[in-house]
């Protein structure tokens, strides 16, 4: 039964087109994610696998615990390069040659910019060039200090005292000095995955929307419901076919994408904390790069599972796929409209909408806290629990709904 349900879905012309579109999106996402350049000794940009290898080699030289010694070395190296004749030259190519030498320490340099920034929310690309000295103690303490200052000034009214204390404690809990490594593979994979998932969720929605409504659209429902298992096993086969379609297609996509991107860019630095990378410096979740990526994949899966489940429920209820296919579109696009509504509570709600699951990388950076069960939590664990629970309810509801309708 399940086999034929899936066959029904993918044998439609629309189903074929949808699958083709998914493969195309996958290819484009993979291509964009691995498009990394390396500036060579002549100051020219190189692309492709060899460029990745060179960049990786350059940054790998600096891998290790980011302690006083390594931080000093990177800082001095930056000063040295900045004061080299190539960097001071008026000629762009000469500048590029200087940049070529900077690539190995580029990420550490960015972290210094973050750490020594003027404020929690500011970032100055040239800051590291102006600093006269750095030390590891300050480097890690600045992160907490800037947060504290921000919470006392700009963000004074955004958080309760308990929330402020909670955030500061979280920041202080970060194990330092942390391990630094080349993490481009993870970072890029995380960055480009949401585009793929957002398209995937809409295409999956389109595919599963027909599982229930196709019976009515093709007027085959009379034979279906008049069959021995038309209101029992055959209905649950549809639910399972939906689950399998979503699960199979999602993990096939996520698997191909991750394998390709990580193989191409390298999976180094899986055990580095997310804070050891520019994008995660301010993050208050204590996760390694590898864990964060797994979270991104799981979030995407849960998002697809939930939104497809909702799509199927609407299709089972309305007997048509028209309203149903709108569900994932709405989920992806509606929140950006809602964000125009200015209300303190609004942002807290927006971050718990299912579209946040599709972009866990960004969600990890949100500073919204929720008091649940006497404790404060970030949005990420709540999203995971909330939508797991909702998905567990959604799929059985389809069964009940489709059976019920069948008697009119």
């Amino acid at each position: 039964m399940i086999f034929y349900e899936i066959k029904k879905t993918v044998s439609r012309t629309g189903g074929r087109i949808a699958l083709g579109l998914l493969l195309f999106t996958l290819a484009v996402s993979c291509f964009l994610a691995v498009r990394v350049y390396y500036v060579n000794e002549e100051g020219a940009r190189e692309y492709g696998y060899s460029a990745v290898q060179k960049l990786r080699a350059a940054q790998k030289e600096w891998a290790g615990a980011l302690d006083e010694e390594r931080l000093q070395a990177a800082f001095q190296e930056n000063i040295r390069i900045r004061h080299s004749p190539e960097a001071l030259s008026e000629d762009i190519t000469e500048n590029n040659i200087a940049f070529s030498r900077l690539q190995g320490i580029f990420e550490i340099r960015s972290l210094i910019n973050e750490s020594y920034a003027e404020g929690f929310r500011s970032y100055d690309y040239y800051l590291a060039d102006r600093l006269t000295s750095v030390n590891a103690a300050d480097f890690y303490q600045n992160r907490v200090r800037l947060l504290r200052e921000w919470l006392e000034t700009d963000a004074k009214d955004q958080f309760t005292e308990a929330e402020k204390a909670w955030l500061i404690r979280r920041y202080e809990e970060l194990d330092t000095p942390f391990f630094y490594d080349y993490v481009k593979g993870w970072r890029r994979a995380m960055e480009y995955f949401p585009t793929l998932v957002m398209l995937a969720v809409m295409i999956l929605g389109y595919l599963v929307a027909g599982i229930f409504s196709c019976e009515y659209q093709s007027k085959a429902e009379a034979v279906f419901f008049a069959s021995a298992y038309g209101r029992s096993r055959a209905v649950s086969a549809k639910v399972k076919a939906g689950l399998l379609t979503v699960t199979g297609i999602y993990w096939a996509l996520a698997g191909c994408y991750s394998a390709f991107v990580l193989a191409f860019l390298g999976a180094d630095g899986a055990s580095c904390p997310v804070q050891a990378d520019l994008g995660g410096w301010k993050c208050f979740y204590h996760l390694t790069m590898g864990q964060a990526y797994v979270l991104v994949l799981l979030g995407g899966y849960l998002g697809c599972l939930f939104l497809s489940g909702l799509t199927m429920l609407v299709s089972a209820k309305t007997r048509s796929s028209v309203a149903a296919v709108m569900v994932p579109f709405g989920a992806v696009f509606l929140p950006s409209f809602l964000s125009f509504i200015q209300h303190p509570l609004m942002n807290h709600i927006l971050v718990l909408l299912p579209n946040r699951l599709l972009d866990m990388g960004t969600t990890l950076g949100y500073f919204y806290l929720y008091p649940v069960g006497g404790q404060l939590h970030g949005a990420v664990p709540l999203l995971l629990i909330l939508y797991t629970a909702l998905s567990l309810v959604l799929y059985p509801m389809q069964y009940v709904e489709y059976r019920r309708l069948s008697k009119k």
Partner: protein
Amino acid sequence: MLLEVTELTKAFRDTMAVDHISCTLGNGVYGLLGVNGAGKTTFMRMLCTLLLPDSGAIRWEGSDIFSMGGAYRKLLGYLPQDFGYYPDFTIQDYLLYIASIKGLRPAYAKKHAEQLLQQVGLWDIRKQKMKKLSGGMKRRAGIAQAMLNDPQILILDEPTAGLDPRERIRFRNLISEIADKRLVLLSTHIVSDIEYIAGEILLMKDGKLTLTGTTQELTASMPEQVWRCTVQREQLDHYLQHYQVSNIRNTADGVELRILSASCPMAEAVPEPATLEDVFLYHFGEKAGADHDIL
């Protein structure tokens, strides 16, 4: 093995689609005859548990079919009037899918589907997609689908609608073939479809069963006589206005009419034995006449 229908009623807003129908059906072919809108489809959909009646009951061997649920549907084969299928499935896939939702074991389903495909003459094109089939082929696939579980109760709603005369004859033969040892209920608004194959005829009008019986019983019960006579063309209008005319045929001497009338319409008129078609006309009057044109 009896299907008992008692006081079955279903109304849609202001129309009584099925109005206190009672009947008992056993093995054999039953022809449910009625004009469009008589309530045939509504009645059949209730027999297939697709529609809940407003009141009344349907019992199979004494048990309520709606309570029996899956156990009843195991015995049921249904070809809906508006027969839908999955356009991108091949005939074979379609049958195997339906077999699976009917709970047939795959090995048996495969064997039985093959046998049915041979019987309805679709074996050679079993790999063709459903959307590529002609109307007649689709109906045959529909019959095969209904027969998959070797049903005790086979319900066919207007199985001949839209078929050309050749396909219709073929269909009649097919139904006679498969009618053995089961209850077949076949609805139509075309008399010739069931005149010869139905053991019993249920005449349905405005949601009620107005008359039931064999063809002989029905024709014998006609209170009016059937007359054959030939009139001049100029007189045609007069006869059409004053009598129920079941057939008109142009001949060399004028127009030959078949008239239903208690009294002799004209001196030259010859009495004829009534046919089922005459009975149908007698009960449905003008409405039926309109449908006859498409014969």
